[in-house]
């Protein structure tokens, strides 16, 4: 491994035209940990993930632990968008094998075929291999796209809302897979909305609000310090009924005002 430092961003700012999307964001994504990227819609989560994946030009700030060039970075981290529109009706197998492009560079071998099948099996979608991608349900498609991201031997998975469109059971299957990858040393960053789920299943969090990092570290701690109230305008209470399982109930407060006004 030529590059063992953690992927991270420091003092990162990004703007589209006059609109500031990210302002002075610093965060680190350790290997072997699942990091939840939290924040309301439009907080800049997707942009942060794209910058970390090297898909947007760097304006201000730095990305540490990145690959030396495009190819090295593609082999270092896989990125999955929230929605993938596939332009042509490829088979599911073909789509998943495309995830290995940074390794085979256009001439896939037998072992690439096997890796693609293994990734599909991992997301419980082996039976979809020969199906055409346009004929999949949105949940099936999401699993296939996840297999496309999981298929390569990457050190980082940057997943933009990987749990949307999944039914509860598949969601837990996916989280189990991610947990297993994390135990193997893969660093995982997932943007998500579900605070309760994030607290239960991720190791640490980074919370964005209006383009700035407003919290990071242990989610349990931050929630007890009122993160949910400040950023999401919801109340979070911890009701622990077993020693290893913390259940979080989130309820919408009676008068839901614009939460951003409460921020300094």
């Amino acid at each position, binding site marked *: 491994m030529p590059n063992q430092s953690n992927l991270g961003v420091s003092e990162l700012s990004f703007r*589209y*035209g006059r609109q500031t999307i990210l302002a002075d964001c610093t965060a680190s994504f350790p290997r072997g940990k699942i990091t939840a990227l939290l924040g309301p819609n439009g907080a800049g989560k997707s942009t942060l993930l*794209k910058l970390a*994946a*090297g*898909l947007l030009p760097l304006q201000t700030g730095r990305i540490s632990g990145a690959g030396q060039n*495009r*190819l090295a*970075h*593609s*082999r270092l981290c*896989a*990125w*999955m*968008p929230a929605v*993938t*529109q*596939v*332009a*042509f*009706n*490829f*088979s599911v*197998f*073909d*789509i998943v094998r*495309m*995830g290995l*492009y*940074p390794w085979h*560079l*256009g*001439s896939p071998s037998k072992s690439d*075929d096997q890796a693609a099948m293994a990734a599909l099996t991992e997301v419980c979608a082996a039976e979809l291999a*020969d199906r055409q991608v346009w004929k999949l349900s949105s949940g099936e498609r999401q699993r296939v796209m996840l297999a*496309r991201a999981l298929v390569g031997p990457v050190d980082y998975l940057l997943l933009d809302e990987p749990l949307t469109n999944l039914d509860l059971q598949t969601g837990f299957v996916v989280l189990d897979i991610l947990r297993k990858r994390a135990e193997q040393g893969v660093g995982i960053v997932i943007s998500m909305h579900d605070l309760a789920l994030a607290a239960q299943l991720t190791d640490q969090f980074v919370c964005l609000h209006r383009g700035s990092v407003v919290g990071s570290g242990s989610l349990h701690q931050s929630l007890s310090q009122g993160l949910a109230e400040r950023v999401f305008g919801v109340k979070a209470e911890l009701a622990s009924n077993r020693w290893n399982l913390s259940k979080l109930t989130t309820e919408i407060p009676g008068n839901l005002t614009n939460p951003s006004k409460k921020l300094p």
Partner: protein
Amino acid sequence: MSRPRSNQIIWLVSLALLLLGIIANVASGSADVSAAETLQGFIAKLQGNQPTESAGLAWTVFAQLRLPRTLTAAFVGAALAVAGVLAQGLFREHLASPTVLGSEAGGSVAAAVAFYLGLAYWHPLLLPLAAFAGASAATGIAVSISGRGSSDGSSGFASPIANLMLSGFAINALLGAATSLLITVALEEPGRAGRALAFLIGGFQGKGFEHVAIASTTFAVGLLAALRLARPLDVLSLGEETASSLSIDTRSLRRWTLAVIGLLVAGSVSAAGALPFVGLMVPHVARHLAGPSHRQLLALSAVQGACLVLLADLMARHIRAPAELPASILTAMLGAPFFLMLLSMRRSAE
């Protein structure tokens, strides 16, 4: 992985159709010559004998007129179909084609102007070069205009296809005005301007081996280059950002793909003028038959593009026989309804 048996059948049928198309085109024409006489003429030529008068004539008709015409049609059809596959792959859109993007009109107007100005007499390569410049300029303008004002301001490649088609429409309208201008000049000055018009109205009347040379060379180079772009174009169908996250340099992929489209269109318009919609219809049919994987799609489209244009030229010679129609009228008459059908299917799918 996918349907090897049916793919073999598709290839066999396509190649058989190509062979049939070549034979039918070589065998038909206004001169009344038989295959036997042609063969006699050929054998006599081989042996260095003086053939009989009818056999000699039959051989000349075959070798000087029909064979180059047929080959030009085949290579032009193949090149336009390959260009169509590239355009659809690059714009990730079934409705894209060299015609819609204005590159065919740009190439043929540039070729006509170059011919009218006499550049073609100066050096034979200037004609395809002018066509390349015209095709690339027209598409480049269409693409860059359609990219303006898109949300991320990056390029026309990420903008909705409607924008691209509207700017293509504007470019085509502009080039239509240039065409009208040339026609006006041609009416006053039938000689050179009249011949320049042939580039605007695509067809294969009187094509010789110099046209075969242009069409075949550009096709061969273009196809080889296109095959190298095939896998990246496959990955591009996942979206520009995903392709980029999979190590593809999308900017360079764009540039190369547009250049190869320009080359293929330039070769075919300098050989035979504009043949609208070949690059739209053929890739669509081939994709439907053999799946979207670009490597196979490029090869199959080349064969089927040749078939389509051979068929168009065959019909063009028979509909008003002994008078001829330009083959471009046939491809337009087939292609425009096809395009509209795709458009309506697309709307009902949404």
